[in-house]
Each structure stands twice: as C-alpha cells, then as structure tokens.
C-alpha cells in the first residue's frame, strides 16, 4: 500500500454498524454488533461481532482479535483503530475478542495469531473500523447541529464545530442508528498522529503489579485444579491406570484418563500434582518406542538423496554446476527445538450439558473452539473461547493439545477445572521445531562469477499435520521460507524440498523454516565468499544490485556495526534475510579466548515497511534476536527410546541476563507496506554468529547448537 489516501468501497455484511445495548444499560456503537448485549454472548460461524463499543459514559472499548503474547498487538492494533477514530490510546480499554468468523485472519484463513501477520492483517481492517465509526459520529453531530458533516472534525473523543463539542458518548446512540458508510477515506500517512509513533504499551501497567491475567491465573467459582501426566514416549497412548491410592489422598476429587494421559483433579493444584505421582499408569509407547536422534538423522539423510520437489527453478542449476570451473558443496544439519514458553501449557474449562466456556492462552481461537467442541461432544457454536494473556507464544500455542485434558476433566466432575502442565510435561511434550538435513552446492565460472546455486532441503512438514489441505498439491509453504526468495544475482537457482516425516509431531517455532533455511543459505554464502577470496559483506553487496531493500539493510548494518573495523581480537559475521515482508541484516561481533565464545554486540538494520509503533518494533527485534541466539548457542532436543531427554531449564538452557549482548537496532524509514516483525530477528542471528565464529577461528559451523560444536559458551 502506498502512503496516499485511498477510498475503500468494498462492503460486506460483516462490516455493518448496528446499535446494541450494553448489559449495564449504556448504548453502544459496535461495528457488526446487531442487537446483542455483549460480544461474549456471540458465537462463531459468521455471527455478528463487535470491533469497538462506545458507551454513553464515553468509555471506548476495542476488541482485539489477536492474542497478546508479548508482541504488543493490544497496543499496535488499537493504535490503528484509534488513529482513524480520533482518540488517544489512553482513552481506550482493550478486551480480548471472542471467537468468530469476523475475526478470521485474512492472511491465514482462521482466527490465528501467528506468522507475524497481526499488523499486516489489521493495517487496513482496523483503520477502516475506526474510520467508519468516526464518520457515523460526525454524521450524528451534523444532524444535531444542522450543519454539513464535512465542516466537522473529531478531536480527542469529541466531534468539534468551532467552539461547540459533543462527546462520542453523547453521540453514540444517534450514531448507532445511522446507516454504515459504504465508503470511507483513510488518512494519508503524513497525517498520522498515532501510527508510526513510539507509543507506550497499554498492557505494561498490568504486568507490573500482578494484575494481568494469564491462562494459569484464571479463577472461576467452584473451580477445581488438575495436574496432567502424558505418555513419556512421544505419540504414545494411555493403556490403563490404577488410581486407588491417589483417590485416598487429600483434596483429590477424581482421576480421569484422556487419550494420551491422566488428569488428577483436586481442590488445589499441589494436591493434584502430588497425587499424580501416586497413580499407577500403564502406557502404550506405540511406534516411537525405539526412536532416537540417530534414527531421525539416518531417515533424513537417506531421504535427502532423493531429487525432491522443485520449489524454485531459474535457469538450469544442475547443468551450470556441471560446467562450473569451481564447485563448492556442503551439508547442514539442524536440531529440533522446544518453544519453552515461560508460562507452561494450561487451560481452564467449564463444560456443561449444552455449552462450554474455555479460558485459554491460545494463538488460535478457531481451532481451540473446534477442538474443545469435539472433545466435549458439543457444537462449535456452543463453546465460548475466552482468550487470556499469553505467557509467551512463539508458535507453541498454535497447538491445541493443552485443551483436551481440561475439557475431559471438567466434563467428568461437572465443575470448572484448570489443568496446568508441569515444566517437565511442557518440555517433553512440545511439538518441536523440525530437524533439517540440507545439502547445498554452488558453482563459479572461470571468471569467478557465481553462476549456480542449488539448495536441497529435507525435513518433516508441520503444515501437513496442522492444515493438510494446504499441502494436498503444494509444497509446505512453511518449509521453504528464506530459501525460495534467495536474493542474490545468480542466473541458475534451484531450490528443492524433500518432505520426510520423522515419527514425532513438529510445530511452528518462532520464524519457522526461516530459522532453518536462513542459517543454511547465509552460512553457505559466507563459505562462497571465502572460496572466492572476498570479504563476506562485499561479496553479498556485489550480488544485490537489483535488490535495493536487501542492499539497503546490508549496507546499513555493515556501516552501523563498523564492518571491518572491529577492535583488536574481535571478529564479525554478517547475514541477511527477507521474511514476512521485512528486510533485515545483522552483524554479530564476538571474541574467542581459549576456545570460549563471547558475543559482544549485535547490530541489526531493519526495513519493515511502515511501522505502527517503533517502540514495539524495537522490543520485538531485540527479543527475537535473543530468542534466536539462545537456540543457536544451546537449543537441542534429543530423544532416547522416543522420550525427550530435556526436562527443565537445567538441561534446556535459556540465555540469562549476564549473557545478553548489547543489541543496536536501526529501524529504517520506509513507505513500503508493513512487514511482520516478531520473527525475522530469530532467523538472522544464527548465521551471523556462525559466520563470526568462522572469521575468528576458521572453523565452519554446519550444525547447531554451537555448544555442541567444540566451542565453549561459558
């Protein structure tokens, strides 16, 4: 989208503004709210749902359709709506939207928070909602004053006519009776007063005094607490259990079996957790009983010799490699990773005969609702999903495996039940980032020109399990990111993908395949620079003449980092990527002493198009870099007998404050369409770090984590 003002003419049923009445008696102006008292009462399947409510007391409530998991959507999406409505952020209260078809993420086809899509999906939608409401409020004031609407403007929650003012609350009733404008004009970017400004987050205060309610904090009248044990072998099932002893323990109300586990329900969580240890459980380990990392690696290695499906094919890379004067080849292998959200998986369910309420820290209300309904034996529209704050998401809560146990338990005891996973359950029953076994080859001609790039990716598909129709005929689009958009000016480029399942469920992990493929592509580009005897930055820059956005972030990162001018004993590595419509380059500066690595500084240049909130963009870039750095240094999920060996933060190591390097983020002005910002940083830091280690030691890292490559990480 360009920065010019533009008109929106399309109009659908769901966009209509209608009048509703608040439970408390106040009048509301709700987009799409048709005669319903409150949005929480509304169901799915295209039922009317509100984006905002303006009550007679001037209170304004925005319903945010995306889950707040730290990425700042409650603030950024509200900024978009407030920009057009003409109110300050301080004037707005935010509520989590219910589940509903109106909230379908247009980029993902369901109500999903993921894929760094929130701003891209809401960019037009929420500004349009604000503009529609503003237009109707102005019309209501114009009618009351007997003046033309175009003589009026909005200011800080009022419609203004010279010195006369009417507050939005005073106008809400009349405005809500008006027809919806079929056409609204959105502000041009140069008139933005909120969008593009580094506003403070509106959820911060609640996160400083314990008042923010996460999934684990839900309290309902009469609620019981559940502790959960799942088959230790991934994919295994519950065979049988004997709860005779557990049922005699204090507070225990019931012990219930699920498909793959056992829930102990008690008055309090600790009682349930203790009694869980007293349940004698027999498991059916299933087909993974002998699975280990070597078996997974062997499977992937064997599959990698197949030709694979073409994901990109420019020119003829195979022929160009044959005729090349010099060919460089390498194999890269990457490990499985856990999400390790700090809030363990949890869910509260209140299942009744004809309805259910589910309180969940979920990234997908649509699938949560469908899953809860299926387990409860209800219709989806009988299940309300209440989205809490998420104590981290990172893709983990796109899964709905934490919902069933609460449903089963609540149904069994006839009361609300909150089930909390222990850290050990969470760590050993994740859907892990897919492992990868990738081969890559490149050829130079006799003049030293890079003429061929051939990348063969092998790994299991997440999307085949999560959204099978997507991969019915196509390659999993979330397996070939940061691979098919190889940006360098090379005439013959081939990218192939070999799907090979490994027996365990894999999941969307922050930045998904970007983190795999950017590592391979950008580390191998470094190998090619080395083979060509060129500086890694200069080598890349020379191949990006036709890619101005890539070139700009590369130049900016190099210049800001002082590329080539590191202090004595320090070494630099560089990498770049486009993902989610965002262009990014990073320079990592390190030193090595007695085989031990210290990361001193990470410089990141970002062009994410137009920004809604640079303060949040900065947070996301810093955080996503440290997420990727943690994984690059230590992340490794290993299996023995089909059981995950990492159980807590002692064996699945997290970066800690003293280990966090200085990060300099440089956000570039851009009038391009907004890009996603939650994830790119995670993918780029790994290769930049590995390239810095090569610069320091001459050692190429072709697999991760770094701590397992003979490098001390303190």
């Amino acid at each position: 989208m360009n920065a010019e003002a533009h008109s929106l003419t399309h109009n659908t049923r769901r966009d209509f503004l209608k009048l509703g009445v608040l439970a408390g008696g106040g009048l509301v102006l709700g987009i799409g709210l048709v005669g319903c008292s409150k949005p929480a009462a509304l169901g799915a399947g295209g039922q009317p749902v509100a984006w905002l409510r303006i009550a007679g007391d001037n209170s304004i409530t925005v319903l945010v359709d995306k889950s707040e998991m730290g990425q700042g959507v409650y603030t950024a999406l509200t900024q978009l709506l407030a920009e057009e409505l003409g109110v300050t952020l301080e004037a707005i209260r935010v509520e989590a939207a219910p589940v509903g078809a109106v909230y379908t993420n247009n980029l993902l086809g369901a109500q999903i928070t993921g894929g760094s899509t929130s701003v891209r999906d809401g960019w037009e939608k929420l500004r349009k909602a604000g503009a529609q409401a503003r237009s109707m409020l102005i019309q209501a004031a114009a009618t009351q004053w007997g003046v033309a609407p175009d003589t009026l403007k909005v200011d800080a929650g009022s419609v203004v006519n010279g010195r006369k003012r009417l507050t939005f609350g005073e106008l809400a009733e009349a405005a809500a009776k008006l027809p919806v404008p079929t056409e609204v004009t959105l502000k041009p970017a140069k008139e933005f007063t909120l969008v593009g400004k580094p506003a403070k987050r509106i959820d911060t205060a609640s996160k400083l005094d314990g008042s923010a309610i996460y999934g684990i904090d839900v309290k309902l009248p009469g609620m019981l607490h559940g502790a959960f044990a799942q088959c230790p072998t991934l994919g295994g099932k519950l065979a049988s259990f004997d709860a005779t002893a557990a049922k005699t323990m204090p507070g225990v109300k019931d012990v219930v079996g699920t498909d793959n586990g056992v829930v102990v329900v008690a008055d309090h969580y600790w009682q349930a957790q203790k009694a869980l240890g007293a349940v004698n459980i027999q498991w059916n380990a299933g087909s993974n009983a002998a699975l280990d990392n070597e078996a997974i690696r062997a499977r992937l290695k064997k599959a990698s010799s197949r030709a694979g499906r073409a994901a990109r094919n420019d020119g003829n890379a195979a022929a160009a490699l044959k005729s090349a004067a010099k060919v460089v080849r390498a194999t890269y292998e990457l490990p499985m990773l856990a999400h390790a959200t700090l809030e363990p998986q949890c869910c509260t369910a209140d299942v009744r005969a004809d309805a259910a309420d589910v309180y969940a820290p979920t990234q997908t209300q649509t699938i949560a609702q469908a899953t809860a309904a299926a387990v409860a034996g209800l219709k989806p529209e009988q299940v309300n999903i209440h989205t809490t704050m998420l104590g981290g998401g990172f893709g983990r809560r796109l899964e709905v495996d934490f919902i069933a146990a609460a449903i089963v338990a609540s149904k069994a005891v006839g009361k609300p039940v909150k089930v909390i996973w222990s850290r050990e359950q969470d760590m050993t029953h994740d859907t892990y980032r897919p492992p990868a076994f990738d081969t890559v080859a490149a050829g130079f001609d006799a003049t030293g020109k890079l003429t061929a790039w051939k990348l063969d990716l092998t790994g299991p598909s997440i999307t085949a399990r999560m959204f099978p129709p997507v991969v019915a005929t196509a390659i999993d689009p979330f397996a070939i990111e940061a691979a098919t958009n190889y940006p360098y000016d090379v005439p013959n480029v081939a990218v192939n993908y070999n799907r090979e399942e490994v027996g365990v469920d894999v999941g969307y992990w922050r930045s998904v395949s970007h983190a795999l493929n950017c590592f391979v592509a950008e580390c191998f580009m470094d190998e090619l620079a080395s083979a060509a005897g060129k500086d890694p930055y200069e080598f890349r820059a020379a191949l990006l003449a036709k890619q101005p956005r890539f070139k700009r972030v590369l130049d900016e990162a190099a210049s800001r980092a002082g590329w080539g001018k590191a202090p004595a004993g320090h070494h630099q590595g560089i990498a770049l990527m486009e993902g989610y419509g965002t262009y990014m380059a990073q320079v990592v500066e390190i030193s090595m002493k007695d085989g031990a690595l210290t990361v001193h500084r990470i410089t990141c240049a970002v062009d994410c198009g137009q920004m809604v909130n640079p303060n949040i963009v900065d947070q996301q870039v810093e955080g996503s870099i440290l997420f990727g750095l943690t994984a690059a240094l230590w992340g490794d999920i290993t299996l023995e007998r089909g059981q995950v060996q990492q159980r807590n933060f002692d064996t699945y190591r997290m970066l800690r404050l003293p280990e966090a390097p200085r990060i300099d983020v440089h956000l570039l002005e851009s009038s391009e369409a907004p890009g996603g910002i939650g994830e790119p940083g995670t993918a780029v830091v790994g290769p930049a770090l590995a390239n810095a280690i090569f610069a320091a030691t001459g050692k190429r890292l072709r697999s991760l984590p770094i701590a397992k490559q003979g490098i001390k990480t303190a």
Partner: protein
Amino acid sequence: MAAINVNGKALETDAAPDTPLLWVLRDHLGLTGTKFGCGAALCGACTVHIDGEPARSCQVALADVGARKITTIEGLSTDRSHVVQKAWLELDVPQCGYCQSGQLMSAAALLAQNPSPTDADIDAAMAGNICRCGTYGRIRKAVHRAAELLKKENA
C-alpha cells in the same frame, strides 16, 4: 490452619505444611501475580521476598515459612509506586510479562541492599530470572533508572 504473614497481613491457610509457598499464594490466598515457571528454582518466575530477601517460592514449604514476612508483587506497593515499577513503566520493559513479577522482586531486593548497583551487581542479582521474550537489555536499563529514582526519593 497455618498462620502466614503476606504483604503485611496476618492470614490463615488450610494448605498442607509441605505445600510450596508458591501454591499457597496462588491457590489458597488468590495471589496469582507470583508465577509458576519451572518448579525447580531454575527460572525465578516465582520470586518473592521473605523478610526482605529474594526467595524462589516454589522451593519453600509452607511449614518452613513460620512467622517470617512474605512480600509478593501485589505487596511491593499498593499503587505501582515502587521505584522498580516506575522505572519498568518508564522504559516499557515487559513483553509477554510473565516473568516480570519475579524480575521486579529480584530487582527490588537488589536495590534494597545496594542502592547503586553496577552492571556486575545487576548480573549477579538478576541471573536467576529467565525472560523468554528477551527483555534483558531494558531490564538492565530499568534497574539503573530505578536506582536514580531511589536517589531522588532519598534526597
């Protein structure tokens, strides 16, 4: 029933003596600001003060608390006026926020002991608190800022 002093109030709880303080606070007393992260003193999300000292409440049994005074995030101040809360707000530290109760309690305990901490002091005091969102840079700045605010308050 066991007596327990939390946030300046003398309370009673029917929790069993071996119940970790974390779950007494969260389940029995309804103070859910203190978070469960690992159950093994590895992440710091459950940090509270016991007689002013930072402690991982998942590792302290109710029976061992005795008459000692517990302070949780809810009792750090009644109106977010503690210097660490002010500094955290000013620097917009939290992302998901789940670890921040523990971070704030660790930082408050540090400043109570050492009103002008160096970076090395901050490293030592805050190393036990994991932030999965990676807010460490802002946490460090906010601890320094809180120390400045503390000086002003004491001036």
